[in-house]
Structures are given as C-alpha cells and as structure tokens.
C-alpha cells in the first residue's frame, strides 16, 4: 500500500503541498487531478526522491519514500516517469529501454521484461534502432513508460502522460496504463490535467487544490459529484 500521511512540501518560500493524506491499495490505479499549480508534480517528485519533504510521511510497502535518492527508490520498486519528454533524445529507443534495467544486472530477466514492453507497445519494437529524437509525441510517451517498466516497478508514478498529445493517442496511452495495472499487477499513481480521461480509467481519484486535498473517493463517485464536475471536469 502507498501511504501518504500529512505530507508537507515547500517549493522555495511557497508551500506547495500542505499536510495531504491519502492511500492507494496495491494493484489499483489512482488519478491525481487538479489545476495548474495544485501541487501534482511536486507530489510526484517528492515520492520519487527528486524533492525533499518538509514534514509528514510517505511509505510504499514499508519503504520510506521521503528518504534516499531516486536510484534507491527504483531498487525498491518505485519508478517515476517525469513530466514532459521523459526520454533521452540522443539515445536510441532500445538504449532508453535498456537504461531502465541496467541496475538489475540480470540480463536474461531484463530481456524478458523488454519482450513484455514490446508486446505492450509494438511500435517501440519497430523503431528499436531509431534515435528517440525521431519519435512522435505518443511514441515518446510509450517509450518513457516502457523505460520505467523496464525497472520492473511495483509502483509506477506517471506525471501527465497525455501532455501535448492528440486525443486519439491519449486514449491509447490511457488504455495501455490500465493494461499495466490489470494484467501486470502494477500500482499506478497517475497525475493528469486531463481530469475526465484520467478518472474514467482510474479506481480512485484525488483532487488537489492549491496544495490541499479538495476531494477523494472512488473515481466513479468523483465523476458523479456535481461540485467536482463543475470545478474540474468542465460541465
């Protein structure tokens, strides 16, 4: 279980997250939605060890997520796909994937994981030798998720995978994320501006507003909630 308790994070002089608490059970998909500046990206960067917290607790299966660097968290099964183009443009598709499994030191297991990634995103296999610079936005996002999956995570933190993608591609990426949860048993925390799309595939939803939690609950309940609809879903 991902357990977040009274987590407070400062961004310079600004309090980006103010004592937020929520939990995500294993094998579930939680969507974190909210407008710009709500603290979504800060939350993800704190959980993966890129940013340090001011106070509070965050644990995944007993591992303290507020202590240690990202490379340490990866070894405890927590992978983070950061916002934007989270692939290395100067490396080939396959090199980007291999990168995620370098620390595992077991090349036959890594190869098996790569097969899973290629099964999930066949496009990446077709383009394995290409520089990732040459990929489309959607393919890049697939590659970023694939790279994170190469580390064999139990908890996957995805920051705005839909950013800048065409609606049809977003749909496809969201389906793949759901598939990662359902067939591979990975727990996912999905941060999204595209609130409706994210809530539709999620099990739970967390609504952030200016660093505090405005609402939490089952995703379907949030979609039905008139206040949430008016403020975040736009109808």
């Amino acid at each position, binding site marked *: 279980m991902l357990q977040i308790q009274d987590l407070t994070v400062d961004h310079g002089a600004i309090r980006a997250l103010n004592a937020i608490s929520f939990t995500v059970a294993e094998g579930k998909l939680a969507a974190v939605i909210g407008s710009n500046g709500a603290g979504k990206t800060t939350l993800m960067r704190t959980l993966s060890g*890129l940013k340090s917290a001011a106070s509070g607790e965050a644990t995944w299966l007993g591992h303290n997520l507020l202590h240690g*660097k990202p490379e340490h968290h990866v070894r405890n099964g927590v992978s983070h796909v*950061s916002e934007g183009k989270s692939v*290395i443009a*100067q490396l080939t598709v396959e090199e980007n994937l291999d*990168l995620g499994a*370098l620390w595992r030191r077991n090349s036959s297991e890594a190869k098996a994981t790569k097969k899973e990634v290629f099964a999930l995103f066949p496009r990446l296999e077709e383009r394995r030798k290409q520089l990732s610079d040459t990929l489309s936005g959607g393919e890049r996002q697939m590659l970023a998720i694939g790279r994170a999956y190469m*580390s064999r995570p139990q908890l996957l933190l995805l920051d705005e995978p839909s950013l800048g993608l065409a609606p049809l591609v977003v749909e496809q990426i969201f389906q793949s994320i759901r598939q990662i949860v359902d067939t591979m048993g990975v727990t996912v925390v999905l941060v999204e501006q595209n609130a409706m799309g994210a809530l539709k595939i999620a099990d739970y939803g967390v609504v952030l507003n200016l660093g505090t939690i405005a609402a939490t609950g089952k995703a379907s309940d949030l979609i039905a909630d008139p206040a949430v609809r008016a403020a975040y879903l736009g109808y």
Partner: protein
Amino acid sequence: MNQFLDMVMIGVSAASIYSLMAISMVLVWRSTRVVNFAQAGMALLSAYIGYELVARIGNFWIALPLAMVLGAAFSALIEFTLMRTLLKHSSQGPIAAIAPIIATLGLLGLIRASIGFIWGHADVQLEAPLSKVGYKFGDTTIVMSPMSLFVLLFVITLMIIVSVIFQKTNIGLALRASAYAPEIAQLAGIRVSGIRTLGWAIAGAAGAAAGILQTVNGNGALSPESLEFSLLLVFGFIAAVIGGLESLPGAVLGALVLGLVLAFVQIYISGALVFIVAFLVLLVVLILRPQGFLGAKAGRRA
C-alpha cells in the same frame, strides 16, 4: 611535396596528443558541467609520476599504463572530495556556475606548487623509450619517428577502446545517459554520482597519457612551470570547444583541425604565430559555428 607530407605528419601527431587532452576536458564537462583547468596540472603530475616510475622500475612500458591508472585514481579523488563538496555547497545562484571552475584554477596552482615541493624546480628528464630519429626512405628522412609513430598508434588504440566502452557497454550507456539527462538517468536507477566520478577517472587516465606522451615526444624535460603543459591545456581546450564540447568524436576532429592548421602555420609561415593562430581558429569557429563541429544546435535538452 615533402614539406607538405611533413606538415601532415607533424599535424597529426600533435593532434593525437591534443585529442587526448580534449577528450579529458569533454568527459569532465559532460559528467559535471565543469571546465577543468586543473587538467594541465593533473597531466603534469602524471608525467612526473611517469618519470618517478621509470626511475624506480626502469621500464617505460610498465610505467605508462601504471601512471594512467594513478592519474585516473587521482582525478576520481578530486571529483569525490573537492567537486562533490563544491557542487553541494554552491548549488544555487551565479556562484554555482563559477565556483567549480575557479576551484579548478586554484587546484592547478596547488598541484604545480606541490610538484615543485616534491621534485624541485629544476628540470627533470623523462627519456623517450624509442628513437626520435625519423624513418628513412632512400635518401629522404621523414619526420615520423618510431616514437611519434608509437604515440599515434597508442592514441588511436585508446580512442577505439574509449568508443567501444561508450557505445557498446552498459557502463558506457550509463555514462552517456548521465551526461545527456542526469535526472532521467537517476529515475532509471543509475547511480549518477558514481558515474560522474567514473567520468572524471577516464578523463584522468586520458590526461595522464597526454602528459607523458607529450613529454617523451617532445624534448623530455619536465618542470613545474612547464610552458608546454600550459599550451597543452590551451590547445586541448580549444580542440574540445571547436569540436562542440559535448562530443568525443568532435574533440578528436577539433584536435585534428587544430593540429593541421598549426603545423601548416609552423612550416609555411612562422613558428612564432602558432599561439595566435590557435586563438584565431577558436574565434573563427565560434563565429561561424558557435555550437562547434559536432555540437548539438539547440541548448541542453532535458
């Protein structure tokens, strides 16, 4: 025609040594975003260590790789102690960009002073292990000698080893990823700080080879105030910058261009102009192609 061939041979053998120096600057730049002016001092120290090892073991062929290993260890130690501390304590504001570079200048002075303290200020002599008399073809003697041919072949071998490491091995993948996008590499589970130290170590080995080869290929004299080593730093740095500063093949290409241009000036115009022309090359390249021969056009990408 003979003069032209001489020019090419002089240019290429000078370029081989510049390229080692350029590579060590590029490696350090890529791993920590620091221009390491202490590289000249580290190369000089390695040359002195080479001299000491030759004096003790009496065998240049063992001393050379051993000095490279020690150069790597010293460089890694500098990164681990000095650079890590500096980067941690000056991570924000304008000082963050300047402090590490100024620190390398300070380190350069420190190393030179320590060398004078240990070995004295008088010249010491590191003898060339091979003949420096040019090969003869009929009645013409070319400038390429067994010594300079060895230098050239050794550098080419090192380049091949380095490029195989970078392109074909897991360590190389980690080195490249950490250079291009440290944050993504970290999120992929790479221990980026260790990889940085490794980048400095490889740079230290390349710099050590540059220092020793330059000395035995030249007149063999070493002194703490050595002008040759200051020139080696300047030429290596120029080669790295015109090559694009990010790119290892670029560094080699930059060194080749610089070496050939300088040899041309030296043979056809005047040896006195070499220093000026080196900076002219730098200026012209920076004006016409600011990103260098093989540098990426845009700024750093995430």
